[in-house]
């Protein structure tokens, strides 16, 4: 049912008394059957993942495709992939807020939600990878902070905490709105709204907190992915031990983050019919940002592989040719196509930078970035320095199951969040509307001859 309210979002009149953004609450009020069906379906996928994981716990990691030289595989690749996507949220919404870009208003919450969910999934993946999961607490009782893995634990938990705070604080006004509208379960909203009543003093506190978090989140986000690249860069393996890994992974993370955000925006726009809020003016700058990141990513990849090739070190060359012409050639060239050719071709022409084009480009980038992680992790392990047999790695059903479980958890997270909280920040839209009207008024007045001498 197409929204019948004729009033366009930029209607005049103060927003305080009359509330038009019913579309944004559609996901909450009309949850009903569709929510339950999708939730149960996705929950079944996750349950399948858990059954496979139980098999891995009982029999051991032998059920996976991992073997003697290639000790790491899907779990570590997915760990880096999910944490990579987490950069969509906080980083982009933080930067956009910092730069006062008006078109960020409907995007920031979606981005922050992606971050929180994906961080939870990614952060859990190393536990799936452990040979003895029940000894995970050893990290806390007898941990060694000197190990890059521990740097990861601290930086991911810091980032998780910062991004949840950064998600929660801007949601307080919306939660209060839901509390006031009496949406079920009432006690939840009352509890979470922390007594928000919209008084100017509360607004001022909120603004101040958001600005602090904005500044805090950006360095943490950058540090998280450099530290994840340090897991690989700190070893002596050929193909890993290179200085460019830090920035390369951050660029890769932002790149895959924007792509994931675009995919989520397009999908939610379609499902909850938010096309009145997510218009081309929102998609176009993000698509240009994606194009820029694609070029930047290509630049970093090119310089990494050129240094490896030009250096002609035997062990590096073995890994290099393992990717270029060896068993990993399809994955490597698939990655280059998905990350560079498709996005650049689609996004550099205005005509194709439409929503369907953007969707294709960003899905390609998400797949490309997953392939990139696979290309980094497995070939270096498959080519040992000493004359061992070249390793191979074929993921088993369990690993594909866990990957599907991870994606399922991502979808479930979004569906549940959408069920309880608005996916687009309502108060920011309204604030934007008032600010926009006030600004345009002032700007137009500044063009017109001054009406009265008093208005300085």
């Amino acid at each position, binding site marked *: 049912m197409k929204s019948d309210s004729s009033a366009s979002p930029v209607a005049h009149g103060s927003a305080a008394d009359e509330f038009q953004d019913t579309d944004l609450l559609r996901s909450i009020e009309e949850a009903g059957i569709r929510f339950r069906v999708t939730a149960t379906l996705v929950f079944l996928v996750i349950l399948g993942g858990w059954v496979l994981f139980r098999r891995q716990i009982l029999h051991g990691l032998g059920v996976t495709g991992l073997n003697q030289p290639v000790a790491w595989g899907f779990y570590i690749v997915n760990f880096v992939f999910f944490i990579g996507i987490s950069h969509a949220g906080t980083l982009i919404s933080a930067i956009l807020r910092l730069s006062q870009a008006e078109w960020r208003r409907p995007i920031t919450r979606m981005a922050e939600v992606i971050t929180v969910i994906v961080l939870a999934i990614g952060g859990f993946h190393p536990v799936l990878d452990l040979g003895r999961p*029940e000894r995970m607490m050893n990290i806390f009782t007898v941990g060694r902070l000197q190990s890059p893995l521990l740097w990861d634990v601290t930086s991911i938990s810091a980032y998780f905490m910062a991004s949840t705070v950064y998600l929660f604080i801007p949601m307080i006004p919306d939660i209060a709105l839901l509390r006031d509208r009496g949406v079920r379960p009432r006690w939840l909203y009352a509890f979470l709204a922390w007594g928000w009543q919209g008084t100017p003093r509360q607004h001022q506190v909120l603004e101040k907190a958001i600005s602090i978090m904005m500044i805090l989140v950006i360095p943490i986000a950058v540090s998280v992915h450099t530290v994840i690249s340090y897991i690989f860069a700190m070893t002596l393996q050929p193909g890993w031990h290179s200085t460019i890994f830090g920035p390369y992974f951050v660029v890769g993370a932002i790149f895959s983050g924007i792509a994931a955000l675009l995919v989520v925006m397009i999908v939610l726009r379609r499902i909850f019919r938010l096309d009145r809020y997510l218009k081309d003016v929102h998609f176009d700058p993000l698509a240009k940002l994606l194009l820029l990141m694609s070029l930047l990513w290509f630049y970093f990849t090119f310089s990494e592989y050129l240094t490896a090739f030009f250096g002609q070190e*035997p062990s590096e060359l073995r890994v290099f040719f393992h990717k270029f012409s060896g*068993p990993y050639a399809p994955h490597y060239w698939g990655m280059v196509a998905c990350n560079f050719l498709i996005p650049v071709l689609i996004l550099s022409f205005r005509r194709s930078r439409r929503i369907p084009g953007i969707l294709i480009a960003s899905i390609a980038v998400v797949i490309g970035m997953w392939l990139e992680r696979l290309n980094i992790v497995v070939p270096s392990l498959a080519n040992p320095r000493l*004359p061992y*047999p*070249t390793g*191979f*790695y*074929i993921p088993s059903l369990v690993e594909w199951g866990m990957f599907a479980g991870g994606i399922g958890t991502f979808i479930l997270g979004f569906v549940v969040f959408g069920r309880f909280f608005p996916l687009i920040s309502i108060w920011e839209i309204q604030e934007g509307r008032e600010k926009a009207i006030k600004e345009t008024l002032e700007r137009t007045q500044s063009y017109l001859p001054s009406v009265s001498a008093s208005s300085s």
Partner: protein
Amino acid sequence: MLLRRREFMKMLGVTAATAGLGACGRNWLVSDRMVQLALRGPGLEREVQTVCGLCEGGCGLTVKLVDDIPVGIKGNPRHPLNRGGICPVGQAGLEVLYAPERLRGPMRRDDGGTLRPAPWEEVLEQIAARLSEVHSGGEPQRFAMLIDAPGRLFYELAERFTQVLGSGSIANPFEAETLPYMLTQGTETVPGFDLAHADLVLSFGLDLFEDGHAPIHAIAATVGTRTTEERVLLLHASSRRSPTASKAAQHVNIRPGTHGALALGMAHVLVREGRYDRRFVAEHTLGFDEWTDDAGQQRLGFRRLLLENYYPDRVAQICGCEPSHVIGFARRFADASAPVAMAGGEAVWGANATWNVIAIHALNALVGAFDRAGGVLLPPPIPFTPLEPVPRTGREELPSVFTSDAAVFASDPIEALAGDGSTTPPVDVLFIVNTNPVYASPAGARLRAALERIPTVVAFAPFADETASVADFILPTNVFLESWHESTTPPSVSVQVLGLAPPVVEPLFDTRHAGDVLLDLAARIGEPAASTLPWRDYPDYLKHRVQGLEKAGQGTVISGSFEESWVRFLEERGWWFLANSGFDKFWEDLVRQAGWWNPAGPRGDVSQLFGTESGRYEFYSRALEKRLVELGTRRGRGQAPLQGAITELGLAASADEVCLPHYEPPAETGAGELSLQLFRPMTARGPLGCVSPMVLEMFGYYTFSGWETWVELSEETAHELDFHDGDHVALESERGSIECVVRIHPGAQPGVAHVPLGLGHRALNEICTGIGSNPTDVVVPARDPLAGTPSLTSTRVQAHLVRRREHGGPPPMHGGH
């Protein structure tokens, strides 16, 4: 009060598991089987010396026991043969001992044709009845025995058992190749090669450090006991770039079967440049120069034969190597102070094996390497108490079942039994002791059919292997750790050594040593056997035989307190090292140290080494001439006797040179484009090695392939046939086909496919059944005209792809650098 460790663990496992769970399940993931093997015992360790029974190498072992349970096997550092060294199969001894598929008791085939467990008493009574039936019947020789015994004492006991029953049909199917040494040197056994003092070893086809009769002794003697400076210089000529070949100072890649030609080429260089031992050749050899035989004819000498026919270019063309290799090898061989030439491996598995070895042994004669430290020695037989002759029953002249006129001198017992696969062999009762010919011999399939037609086949084996599963009775024998066992000087070893060891543990199951069973049968058969085999049990027999050793007073029990040279030094000065303190003390020492040895060095008189009529090393073999003339007159179609024999046997030599060392081209059967050559890696030593999961896992340890049979191909051959490293291919001959994994081996010879022996069992134990493939299934054996032994390296096979390498897998062997 030895509580079996198993019961302790079960009882303990239960309590520990509950305790483990009780500790609020911190390790709930740990399966109870993984609970620490906390012994209730005090953990007291002791070490026992014994001798390895898994192959004929006779290495001395030290078994470590904790609370009377053997937990580890290592080499006995004081044993003169292996000096503490041990091969992978030896260390898997415990895995053979504890193998779950070991036979628990005797089995008998019921009329329904299936093997059922049966009690010892009943089975022995039945066999004894059958034996006395054959003995009293007209043809006692229809009772035959195939036996492969590492020790001469056990072989003599078995021989005495057959003789007392009036039969001479006893044979060791896989006996060492003795014919060439009998023809040239007149010895009954393979001479000993004194590797401990040689400074240059020239090996033809024999991978000294992997194959042969005692590889660990070879390593210990040439490398282990030497300082780095005085390590032996190894020259190696073979068709395969084996690890030994890579270890050798120089390796020449020659065409398969052309080892004799290379040796003659080297002999040519020695003679032409006069670098041979003139004095030794003049005084101690026959047939070197022209000589006139008693019929007054002028006969061709070895010198002229060499100079005319075996110049380096022709030899290089035959062998497929460079003339400079032939000349280089010959000069280095001559310059060495104590060189010795040895043949083995693929050189003795071909149809021209006897000719190859004669040619190679001639090199030793040319440099006079006989009865000299580092050369060829003849260790005298170990002075056991001689057994009185078996009372005559007047029917000894009946020929043994195994003799057949297929070959000039001897004949292959398995071929005699197997026939063409359809005839019934002339045998009523057949004992097969500690050997598995159905698996190991190329004629295995035909032998299997023949065994089914023999009324009574009794197999002595610890596992139900291919041969035993065809037998009517299976009498389970002990693994060497469970019983008294001995091993005497292995062939080609120059030191007299006797390994004799008591059981380390009591038998796990209801099994006995084959010697005990024979003595038990003798007692049951009654009069002729009971008196000639009077011993209560096998240790009693061993004790009786060893008394002679103590009286002879030579050598010493392995005590390790004196170095070998010390013992020699003392004996030369009349000090009898062994204070004669009575037999019991000697027996107790011998059993505790599990060995006796006598560093029999050179005897001082060369002629003692030659048992030929002329008392000399015969280049021109009189024995061969006599037998060929006999064959020629009997079968020759009117030609001169020698020429008749030559045409009869299809030899390439002319009448003059047939009795001299000359080159006979290797026989080729089948039409494939690849020449199939077999080799035995270190992990394929002995028949029981592949029972152990560890040995199977590290089977191809230097090519990263375990649990599979591989074929080594050169890069060009693999490129021609479009095979990659790791592909599965099938090698086919008219007899069948086997599947192997391709390993592209750098330095392998084009057109040659090397396949390891040792796998492809169809029945031994559950772990190794169906693993890999047995190359002897595709071998089309050509016959060695003189010795009659089947050749393993004469088949040409066709190769085609079965399936590509699925994924990753081992790198091409050039290591990718």
